């Protein structure tokens, strides 16, 4: 097979004052035509930098300071800007992570695709549109003619990503660089996009550099893998080699970290429920005004479930399934339209503002975004004591408790006097958990609590939760879009779709004998599912 791209000893220098001198330090790789090379690494590993360097899209201040990237016999890195511009989009194409923002909001999809031809001065306007249309069809967008005229905001995330791909394919590039193209998508959509890329690869025979942090995805599509840590390629080889017997400890850590779906043993639990949800409904009306009729979205549609003391219930669903709304209703950040939320007998949904404030401590929440969940202007101590103090706990006690909790979540009491910006994402999540615990709640709602974290960090936080569960007998409503994560921690799993509760049952039942079609789809869509399955069997063996 002919080599499309070979990178030799590429290093990329970061501007002064950065956490390290080089984003990428002397990495080499080869991509042959029709081959998919997965570049795996956690955030900050320099994998995206490598891609941008190839495209000549490095942010200001960041420069290539060594190595070559030979594409079709010439070193693209040393080409003059005009030459590289010719290459871009025509022979090397790229797609990005955020389909939401990667398209110009004010241009029709059709325009944006045919623009590629225009950029390289090819074909007449009508010809361009014809080709754009065929591309839209090829990437499997529904009703192509309509999509051509549509604006980005009228498309779903998956559709936008397909549009992006259509753009990238326009001039049949020999090399496609995909920078985390599926990370922002739901599992089912992700599966479709992955299939699309695989399929195109075989049909077009182009080389693909696929950047991801998810070994599941790697298992799905990779021919070859290169693992990066802090700008250094720690391991590379065929997908099989790397996945089956990783050499480098970092790779191993990553592989262990990714939830393999090895199912925990079912635990015995006392029957007493901490939370009972009965016939819960929440409808969102948008717009509505003098001359406009309101639009309705049934976010939570007649949901009933209960959580036993010490139980962890996983609430799984794709974006828009209403799982978050349900969670926020349980803590009464959202007031339901109908139904009850019984915590230790009291119906939170029915409480008045004042009563609610007094019984806030019953249910606490751990939030998704570690960077938005702590007030940047308050010291950690204040974040942890504000609640208890408001509940009438004397300040000294509250502070003592806070420091103790910080120890428990593994940060150390002395951290209490620091500001949030001094902590990493994972640490912040620990603080978030400590904050929740400080209120001595009966139930904790964890809303995508680990989704924003790198896999290795994710694993640590999950361990912490598992540990707390057993030590403090915590009851947790664990909301996530990631079935594998749910499998790690939960006793039971509830699957939601379009606001309705589709299926609820013990982890084993859900994973091994799902009753509902939708659940099966979800499971099938999990990247690396088959591979994971093998592991599982090995796990039981």
């Amino acid at each position, binding site marked *: 097979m002919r080599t499309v791209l070979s990178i030799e000893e590429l290093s990329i220098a970061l501007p002064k004052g950065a956490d390290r001198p080089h984003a990428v330090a002397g990495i080499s790789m080869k991509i042959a035509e029709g081959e998919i090379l997965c570049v795996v690494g956690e955030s900050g590993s320099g994998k995206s930098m490598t891609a941008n360097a190839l495209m000549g899209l490095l942010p200001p201040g960041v420069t290539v300071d060594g190595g070559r990237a030979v594409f079709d016999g010439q070193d693209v890195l040393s080409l003059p800007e005009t030459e590289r511009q010719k290459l871009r989009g025509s022979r090397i194409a790229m797609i990005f992570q955020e389909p939401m923002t990667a398209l110009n909001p004010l241009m029709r999809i059709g325009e944006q695709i045919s623009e590629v031809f225009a950029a390289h001065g090819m074909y007449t306007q009508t010809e361009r549109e014809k080709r754009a249309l065929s591309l839209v069809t090829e990437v499997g967008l529904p009703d192509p003619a309509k999509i051509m005229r549509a604006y980005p905001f009228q498309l779903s995330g998956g559709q936008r990503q397909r549009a992006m791909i259509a753009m990238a394919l326009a001039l049949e590039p020999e090399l496609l660089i995909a920078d985390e193209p599926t990370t922002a998508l739901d599992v089912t959509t992700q599966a479709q996009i992955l299939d699309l890329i695989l399929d195109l690869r075989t049909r077009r025979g182009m080389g693909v550099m696929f950047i991801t942090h998810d070994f599941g995805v790697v298992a799905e599509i990779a021919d070859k893998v290169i693992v990066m840590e802090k700008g250094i390629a720690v391991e590379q080889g065929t997908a099989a080699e790397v996945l089956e017997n990783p050499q480098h400890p970092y790779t191993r850590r990553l592989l262990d970290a990714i939830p393999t779906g090895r199912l925990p043993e079912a635990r015995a639990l006392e029957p007493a429920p901490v939370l009972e949800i009965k016939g819960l409904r929440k409808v969102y009306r948008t717009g509505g005004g003098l001359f406009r009729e309101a639009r309705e979205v049934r976010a939570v549609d007649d949901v009933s479930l209960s959580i036993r003391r010490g139980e962890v219930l996983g609430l799984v669903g794709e974006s828009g399934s209403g799982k978050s709304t349900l969670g926020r209703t349980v803590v009464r950040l959202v007031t339901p339209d109908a139904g009850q939320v019984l915590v230790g007998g009291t119906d939170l949904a029915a409480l008045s503002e004042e009563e609610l404030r007094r019984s806030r401590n019953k249910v606490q929440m751990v939030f998704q975004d570690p960077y938005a*969940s702590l007030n940047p202007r308050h010291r950690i101590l204040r974040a942890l004591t504000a*609640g208890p103090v408001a509940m009438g706990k004397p300040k000294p006690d509250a502070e003592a408790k806070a420091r103790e909790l910080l120890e428990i979540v593994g940060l150390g009491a002395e951290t209490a006097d620091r500001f949030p910006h001094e902590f990493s994402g994972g640490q912040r999540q620990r603080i978030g958990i400590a904050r929740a615990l400080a209120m001595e709640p009966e139930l904790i709602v964890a809303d995508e609590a680990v989704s924003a974290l790198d896999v290795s960090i994710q694993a640590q936080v999950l361990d912490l939760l598992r540990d707390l569960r057993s030590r403090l007998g915590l009851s947790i409503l664990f909301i996530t879009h990631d079935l594998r994560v749910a499998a790690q921690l939960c006793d039971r799993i509830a699957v939601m779709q379009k606001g309705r509760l589709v299926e609820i049952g013990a982890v084993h039942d859900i994973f091994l004998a799902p009753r509902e079609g939708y659940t099966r789809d979800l499971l099938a869509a999990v990247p690396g599912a088959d591979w994971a399955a093998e592991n599982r069997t090995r796990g039981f063996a």
Partner: protein
Amino acid sequence: MIRRFASNKGAVIGVLILLIVIGLALSADLLFPRGPWAMVQRPFLVPFTMDGFPLGTDTLGRDVAAGLVHGARVSLLVGLVSTIVALAIGVPLGAVAGFYGGWADEGAMRFTEFFQTIPNFALAIVLVAILEPTLTSITSAIAIVSWPPVARLVRAEVMAVKRREYVDAARLAGLSNFRILTGEVLPNTVSPIIVMASLMVATAILLESSLSFLGLGDPNAMSWGYMIGAARTVIRSAWWLSFFPGVAILVTVLALNLIGEGLNDALNPHLSRKGTA
């Protein structure tokens, strides 16, 4: 943040200029104990022609330099106070509107729109004319016409901040709405407000001078605008009378703008002018 500000050359220059102006304003009585109105020399003394009167004298033989220095006080005072008052109206209104939403928002915004629909400058003129030109009336007039943008800004900021998860956290901590608004939300909206305020002071100074120019200045308070207003009829025969105060205004406003932009870069890097965050 201080470092980011200090690294901005313009901003530093602005601060220096402003400090000088403030210094002069404060030491006005020491520098010119006889005050700005004393007729100390023959009228229309051309600048740089007589020691002790570097900037010449005006139509009544009053020392222009004295006028400038004493005027700095008034101009700065009007600019500052009117801005503070404007903030005092705009911030609470915007905060309540943005935080509680619903009818509170609807009402507050109608009110704001209402004031934005009346032509600002015209309204200011009418107000001053009605209340009759005194420092108080001028200041309040300026404040009244300049609070709406504040309200809108604060509203937008509050709406953005209140969606942050730490606000939810505060709710779950059982804090009262008021404490959440004042303790969690508002403190995180200050930076854009500070930036806006610094620019508002500048605009207020311009506004005051414009009013004075139209003869709506306080005759008992020497201000730059008042000097220009008084001098515009002799602008042909005595250019310096309107030139120096004009420059004073220009420089001060310039300084404030530079500071404003500096603050903007320093406090809101994400929407920094230089773009590179």
